[in-house]
């Protein structure tokens, strides 16, 4: 019996040892440095709101980059972070795109999910002669930390009447359109806060770019500078700290790099080998003053938008010279709104560069952290990004970062961006907000 006892004792000893876990000294997330995260507010547009797949819906909101940052901030004393979520009953929000299938050639087929939170539509006059249709959503009442409003520009963030023109903003306001007269910046600063993120300014260039340079205009550089100062003065009026982000190169997103001139041309040539070129209606100069457009053959430097209905190519178009195929002759060029031509793209790049110079200068003058998302996303476009064994890139769908609209990010993309913000905050204020785990967030959903 004695030896059995020995074995028993040894086994017990081993089990006791086995219960000892190895420990490592992890990052001790204790300090918020010189910042105060007790009430963090997020100021910005669709990218701040969690907009994805061409819509604002609950899952996207839950994975917004400010929500991810706030969750990490809590580990160093950050406070509650409340988002103006669509309810679970109306989780589909504005409606959004879903990947329905992939064709045999690997082409995505998307499907529109119907909106769930639309409460109506109104027509609002914007001048004596023009009106705009505004879709209104179920009102949100309650505390707000994430003030992201899809569609808002820096240019419109100070307009008192903007709450009547943007359904996503109207949704947050106490009054119904057309009776609002509180500017966005006044609204977001009405309640005291200790820390902010500000990623306004994307739409000041993106609106122009996604419209193919056809219907929107780039915000004037001097105006941008004046407004950015004004907004940041307001946000730091009580000595608050914060983080701002630079504007990504609008031409670095899949929206402009997926349907390419060469790909369209190659397909056309398969059916009709005699076709030599696609024709586009293009801006003849990148100078702001020269707004002349003329038809010319497209080159690889002209960027076709993701939403271009390629079935239009070759369709007969009535012209003075008779019916001619769409997109294949100088008389029937691809329309302006489908192409960000080389001169339009140059203008967008030039303005974004100027905006970013402003953003960095204003932030520096106030000692505010800068998340340089412009440089970060350009780096990914050039080299991709490998992290935790995941290959991320700027590719549409397969890249994992960009959602189905080719402009906004996936939850994983937002987590990657949140980590860039966290790095910038920690660097500026000596805080130690832990990095988020990007592996826990999804890329594009496949059927």
């Amino acid at each position, binding site marked *: 019996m004695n030896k059995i006892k020995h074995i028993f004792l040894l086994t017990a000893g081993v089990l006791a040892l086995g219960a000892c876990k190895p420990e490592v000294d992890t990052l001790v997330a204790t300090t918020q440095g010189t910042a105060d995260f007790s009430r963090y507010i997020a100021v910005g547009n669709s990218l701040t709101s969690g907009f994805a797949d061409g819509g604002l819906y609950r899952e996207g909101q839950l994975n917004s980059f400010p929500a991810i940052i706030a969750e990490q901030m809590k580990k160093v004393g950050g406070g509650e972070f409340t988002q103006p979520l669509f309810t679970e009953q109306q989780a589909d929000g504005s409606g959004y795109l879903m990947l329905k299938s992939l064709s045999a050639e690997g*082409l995505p087929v998307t499907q529109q999910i119907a909106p769930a939170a639309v409460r109506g539509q109104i027509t609002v006059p914007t001048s004596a002669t023009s009106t705009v249709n505004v879709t209104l959503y179920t009102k949100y009442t309650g505390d707000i930390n994430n003030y992201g409003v899809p569609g808002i520009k820096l240019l419109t963030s100070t307009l008192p009447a903007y709450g009547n023109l943007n359904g996503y903003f109207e949704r947050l306001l106490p009054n119904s359109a057309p009776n609002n007269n509180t500017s966005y910046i006044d609204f977001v600063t009405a309640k005291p806060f200790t820390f902010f993120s500000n990623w306004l300014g994307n739409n000041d260039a993106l609106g122009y770019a996604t419209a193919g340079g056809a219907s929107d205009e780039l915000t004037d550089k001097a105006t941008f500078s004046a407004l950015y100062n004004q907004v940041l003065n307001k946000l730091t009026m009580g000595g608050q700290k914060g983080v701002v982000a630079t504007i990504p190169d609008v031409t670095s997103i899949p929206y402009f790099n997926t349907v390419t001139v060469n790909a369209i041309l190659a397909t056309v040539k398969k059916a009709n080998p005699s076709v030599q070129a696609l024709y586009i209606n293009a801006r003849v100069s990148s100078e702001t003053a020269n707004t002349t457009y003329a038809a010319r053959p497209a080159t690889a430097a002209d960027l076709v938008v993701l939403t271009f209905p390629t079935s239009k190519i070759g369709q007969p178009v009535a012209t003075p010279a008779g019916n001619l195929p769409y997109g294949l002759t100088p008389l029937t060029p691809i329309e302006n709104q489908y192409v960000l031509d080389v001169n339009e793209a140059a203008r967008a790049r030039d303005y974004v560069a100027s905006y970013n110079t402003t953003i960095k200068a204003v932030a520096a003058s106030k000692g505010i952290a800068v998340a340089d998302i412009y440089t970060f996303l350009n780096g990914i476009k050039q080299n991709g990004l490998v992290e*935790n064994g995941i290959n991320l890139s700027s590719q549409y769908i397969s890249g994992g970062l960009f959602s189905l609209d080719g402009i906004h990010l996936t939850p994983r993309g937002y987590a990657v961006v949140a980590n860039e913000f966290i790095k910038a905050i920690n660097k500026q204020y000596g805080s130690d907000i832990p990095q988020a785990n990007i592996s826990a967030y999804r890329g594009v959903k496949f059927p």
Partner: protein
Amino acid sequence: MRKILLALMAMLPAVAFSQGFQVNLGGQKQIGMGHTGTGLVQDGASVFFNPGAVAMLPENSIQAGISPLLFKSVFNPSGTDAQYRTANKVATPFSAYAVWGPKASSWKLGLGVYTPFGGLTDWGNNWQGKYVLQSLDLKAIFFQPTLSIKLADFISIGGGFVYSHGIVNLKRAIPVADANGQDGQAELKGSGHGYGWNAGVFMKTESGITVGISYRSKATTTIESGNAIFRVPSALQSSFPQPNTFRAGIPLPSTTSLGLGFYPSKQWTLALDANLVAWHVYKSLDFDYAQNTPTLQDTHSPRLYRDGFSLRGGAEYKPVTKWAIRGGGGYSSTAAQDGYVTPEVPDANRYYLTAGLGYKVANRLDLDLSFEYEHLFKRTQTNIEANFAGTYKSNVYIPGVSLTYHW
């Protein structure tokens, strides 16, 4: 027209082996003494430690032992406060030996069945490194018939042929979300075999010190037709054809050992061992899939291992004939260079401490208990291939028991 190349590249698994996968659990008496034995004549485990010493064994014997192994590892991703731990799963390395020769003859035959390489690492499906590895279960079982000949009273030689049987099961998440946001998964499982040999020489010097030198060759174990299972959303199924098979070679490296035995008194035996493990053969790990697609390409992952060494020492004290008390320890250098450490085995320099107890249950029956504790030093690493950065720390707990019948 929206032609997208689903270049979901490099989402394919790779297996790494390292010092961590060399199990070094050749026999309970030897484990108790810091896993020394190349320069000693203890029991049938000489088949493993030094086939040259087998002919010096005074008796015929048959023995079997098992060493349940608990590998506990923790990982802290850089810049976070998170800690991830491997699941408590017990691997079961074992060893069994038979040695026989006519009494008073100058030769002996031996047979060894043992598990010199293996690993069981399960990080779970939801940790930060799930796209690098979820779990790995690897075993290599060696079958080794051996012949040993005593050339003179003071010298014997021996050699054996090794047949290795390898079994692997590796799981890794694939970063493609399905409609519910769940990851895809790759599972590679299969078995294969390889061949090798070993040889050794054992000498008794005039000063009473015994010396052993042994060499165990590389045994590249090839999985010719493993099962490559990919669980992906149905829209991507054509990119990951099923069923599919893979071919992979696992280079199990050679080990060269030098051992010394000292006998200061009748009660005491002291031993020293030095090993050189030629891990440099492990330059890259290649998976060759039977069916490739633009997404599913063969993979070639650089490993660039360097040779590792171990130094071990141990002692045995027999206060009375029935009992033996053993102790020992050692140090092993890592085979994985900076930048190539993976969670499959978060290899690092390590030390180990061992203890053992031997008891003569009956005249011909020995019971041996052993316990080994290994500590892998904390290592902060960024894996280059996966850009996976963090700090690993691991402990290994290995109890063991064996029975030996000798006549």
